[in-house]
């Protein structure tokens, strides 16, 4: 332990050669991403007023997905970050999608009309 620590001491005391080159995101890019996010917010509110049936939900989720991607890539710096961080992020989302997907498959395996009036929105 003692040896290790003193070793560390020497390495750390070494020098300023190990300067950390930092990637900064240009301000114009941050602003452009912000404006795109605002634009997409306006679009998602506007598209709700058009009746597209079931497509409304998917369009809203698609727009939200694009917005989240913009935030993750530029604000959260994933575009320039270690690939592993992006992998973690996508992995978490993949597991959530899997979780929701299987839960929905399960609930839809039951007839909604076993209890009369229980699910008036989907039963025929």
């Amino acid at each position, binding site marked *: 332990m003692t040896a290790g620590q003193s070793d560390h001491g020497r390495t*750390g005391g070494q020098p300023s050669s190990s300067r950390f080159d930092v990637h900064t995101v240009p301000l114009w890019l941050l602003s452009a991403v912000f404006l795109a996010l605002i634009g997409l917010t306006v679009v998602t*509110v506007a598209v*709700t007023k058009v009746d597209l049936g079931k497509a409304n939900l998917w369009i*809203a989720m698609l*727009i939200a997905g694009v917005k989240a991607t913009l935030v993750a890539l530029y*604000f959260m710096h994933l575009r320039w970050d270690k690939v592993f961080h992006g992998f973690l992020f996508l992995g*978490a*989302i993949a597991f959530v999608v899997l979780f929701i997907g299987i839960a929905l498959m399960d609930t839809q395996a039951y007839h909604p009309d076993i209890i009369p009036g229980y699910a008036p929105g*989907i039963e025929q």
Partner: protein
Amino acid sequence: MSHGGKPERPATAPGHPGKPRLGHHYDTYEQQFDSNKLGMWLFLVTEILLFGGLFCAYAVYRAKHPEVFIYAHYFLDVNLGAINTVVLLFSSLTAAWAVRAAQLGQRRLLVALLTITIVCGCGFLGIKGIEYSEKWKHGLLWGKNFDYEALHHGDHTGADDHGEAAESGETADHGTAGVADQATPADPDAALAEGTGPTATGDATATTSSAGEISNIPASAMGPPGLAAAQMVAEGHGSLEDVPRNVHLFFGIYFIMTGLHALHVIVGMVVLLWLLVRASKGEFGTQYFTPVDLGGLYWHLVDVIWIFLFPLLYLIH
């Protein structure tokens, strides 16, 4: 490196003379940054999974009971939701910009940007507070706290407020017919038990006409009082009179999802405040900005979650 003649922190002093912010167990600032950032991303993964459970509850209930979600979303104010989205997006911009300012050693800019981000967080919570208090006032709550009675009282006065030519009697007839339509395929006993049956409606009508013109349409519903009812009819979704069973489910999901999100906003603001104090002491610079970066990541994740909550709760079609 020391500021205002303050002594170096003893904890960080050993190992790295002249580098007070570099932990003794790291070799370089870059190694420290990478290691800390990996830890933060792992934490964000657990956050995504935490909210994932709530999104799953949402998806299952919406798939089973679309009528509840279509009905209940008329009680959320799209404008307030959209304003809050913009506020949160703007605070994300300032948080990302704050990281840049920290990296470039722009101390005063960093302090200003962190302050703006915190102010935006306060704005978000303020608007959320207005929405919550309106729902509280009108009994639009979770579980057994949901006030079905208030909904029935609201419709008639709401229609009157809207200034339609319809007499309140006509409105009531229309409403009752609507309920009958809705209730026929359903179990009539169940409908009665939930207070949506014709008898319950009749009682409500009587109460309303005798009780006078207090509008019970929640002000948090779209636009001015009564507009929610009009909009619902215009969009072919029946009327406010047709209260589906288990509307409280929506408000349970609404409160737990937005509530947990709001809790995250509060935690994020505490983190930002801590960053603000450290930034104003000049602790961050071109080689050490890790806390600003990680605090920013947390704030952005909270933003990403709201990006999904907004269309799912407010923009139901």
